[in-house]
């Protein structure tokens, strides 16, 4: 399965960058989201993947023993997902605002700080 994930991560990064290089602002946003997903999966994969052993201590025991999924990358990813949501929602609204103001979805129209707002 690691092989498939490796490929998937590569595809996420590639498509993310590709979309960030498009002229449309909406596509830029899609690129950012794809890139974020790729990064999350990368951390997940590098922490080592384990099937069916969540890091939850069973009812009767006081510590986790045996094989279990690594909780550290999971905690990191959880934080990353939430933060990227903050970023995405801000970007979506910002994009909407820019679009309302300059009536364009084209990044090439934004290539000077002097574009009047």
């Amino acid at each position, binding site marked *: *399965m*690691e*092989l*498939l994930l*490796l*490929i998937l991560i*590569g595809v*996420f990064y*590639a*498509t993310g*960058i*590709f*979309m960030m*290089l*498009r*002229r*449309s602002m*909406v*596509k830029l946003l899609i690129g950012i989201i*794809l890139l974020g*997903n790729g990064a999350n*999966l990368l951390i*997940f*994969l*590098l922490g080592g*993947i*384990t*099937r069916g052993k969540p*890091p*939850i*201590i*069973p009812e009767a025991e*006081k*510590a*986790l*023993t045996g094989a*279990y*999924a690594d*909780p550290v990358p*999971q*905690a990191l*990813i*959880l*934080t990353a997902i*939430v*933060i990227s*949501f*903050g*970023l995405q*929602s*801000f970007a*979506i609204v*910002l994009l*909407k*605002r820019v679009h309302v*103001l300059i009536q364009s979805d084209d*990044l090439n129209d934004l*290539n*000077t700080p002097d574009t009047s*707002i």
Partner: protein
Amino acid sequence: MLIAVLLGFVFAPLWNLLGRWIKGSFSWLPALLPAGLFLYFASLYPVTQNGPLLTSTPWIPSMGVNLDFRLDGLSLLFALLITGIGTGVFIYASYYLKGHRHLDRFFAYISFFMASMLGVVLADNLLLLIIFWELTSISSYFLIGFDHEAAKSRRNALQALVITGLGGFLLLAGFVLIGTVAESFSIAQLLGTAGSLQNHPLYGWMLALVCAGAFTKSAQFPFHFWLPGAMAAPTPVSAYLHSATMVKAGVYLLARFTPMLGGTDYWQYTLISFGGITMLYSAFHAMHRKDLKEILAYSTVAALGMLVFLLGIGTQQALLAAGVFILTHALYKATLFLVAGMLDHETGTRHIEKLRGLRKVMWPVAIAGGIAALSSAGVPLTYGFIGKDLIYDATLKAINWPWVLTAVALVTNILVLYAGFQAGIRPFTGPLPDHHRTLHLPNARLWLPACVLALLCLAFGILPALTNGLAGAVASAIANTPVDAHLAIWHGFNTVLALSGLTLLAGFLLYGWFAPPEGKLQQRWEHLSPESLYRKAGQGFTWFAGKYTRLLHNGNLRSYVFSIITFIILLLGTKILTGVHLYFDRRAVVGGLRLYDVVIFVVTLAAIWKSISTNSRITAVASLGVVGYCICLLFVIYSAPDLAMTQFTIDTLTVVLFVLVLFRLPRFLRINDKLWQDGILAALFGGLISLIALGALNEPTTKETSEFYAENAYLLAKGKNIVNVMLVDFRGFDTMIEITVLSIAALGVYSLMKLRISSDNKE
């Protein structure tokens, strides 16, 4: 002595604070500062006869930089010139710039400059010297650009700063080199070990760097052009900085380093050739100028060349001649500048064709100008005669090619005489034009300093023995061995006298019969002069910077991303391909593949493809939702239930937000330029990340941190879901900050939504 040096820095802001009085009737007040300092240094004269005076105050002892000051004959001469001429210039300026709205500022700058200049000539520590050296450049920048509303002033000030700043930078490198080699930054100690530097393998570098500093500061060819440009400054500044003091800092430096670096062939040839070329070139130019201050500027450059030339010859006679000539030149050239300033101030023009017969309306000025011109010509009974005698004496007794050097000095002196007469005598002779009849004698504060200086030219000329002590002390300090000076008017009939006579005769003839065509020289050769080359270099640099900036900083977001990614690919790619051992562990990487893994994989790929290829935004967003849910499934399968829940929630929210906010926007732009270029770059980047991930997977991992949490989650924090416990308990503070970040994002979103900029306000 420390206080004496720093006093100017203290008073500089004070003049500004007292601005109202300075601009009022107390404009003479600042002149008390240089006058007091002059008396102080004059009183130290007997002390220095017994050897240098040293004071030391710790400043940065850990780096060997202390406020060490040292007063010997050479320093004393300069200190007296700086404060003495300073007094005259301060008095002069108080009237010259009377009513100027920045008079207080002027005195602040010039006090600042005076203090820096005193620091340069008194500092015993090389690093201290360079600090003061740069301060003179900076204060000179402000003084040249004093008339800051004129573009020419600003440009010339910048030009002077660039040239002298460049030299200062090279000089600093030279000092560091010397200090490292000699293991001391103290001039006194370096003088003690004189002779060891000349044999060091890096001697050539030291010489080149020190000369670069000195030549730029003292306006030697081809760096001379900033000095005529600096004439944009008010005349008191020109008289003070650009004839008597600052430009001589380079000469001071060379004189100071004569015992340490001098005496070699390299030293001799460098200084003689630079000095010689400078004096001929600028004396020739001085003859072709018609503007009073330009004539004086070029003849100053010629005098500076003469000084460098004499230091290069390096015999005792030459060093004595240099010492005397510093004083001679300062006296007559400052006078000529002051006279030129008065003419400009009274008549409003500096063009020598328009200035005639002015002796009839301002006779004291005429006397001062006349004496100074005679002194610059070297007429007997003026101090210039003594100086000229010593120069010929030095060139005739030079070790190599005495006749060539004498000829160069002779030609320069003839041309300088011409320039001096043009500036000091010509405006006062001949008939007075009608439109100048209304003129009257300016205020005594203007002509008195010039007259005092002119009288000194005369007094020292008649009684040269008065300066024996000082001249001897200067020459001794330069040579680092005792030198006796016996200055006299009459040495009997000899070659020197004949040369002096020849100079005068040829000079008078030239003045009487020759009128060079105006401006012809400049027009023909202007495009080859160092100044225009400097300009072109400056323009070229600006052009290059502009192109470069527009290329990289073009405001186009996509090209930024493109160049950043390209750079990362090159950097990481090189490292991965050359430094990391990549291998493919088939069992670990491929093992345990199930059917549903493959299904999820294929669905994700299809959804990604759809999201990037579709032209409908709704389809793209929906595909993104599918991608998110697939990741969610992966999390479920691979033991991360918390992640799955979070991903599910967030993904749903994002899709909803996207649709809500964007549904009314137009369709995607259909423009898809640079498709292949971007596609290849993106594919390379994705592949690279996969390779890095593979490399990282192959590395063994440690699980210490995870084990700690697994063992202690329940024991310490009473929670069974380890991920939850980590977030809210062990790393609770991080989570709080994360919440803060989200709140800020929420605030941003809210205010962007509420922000109402109507379409009328868009412009």
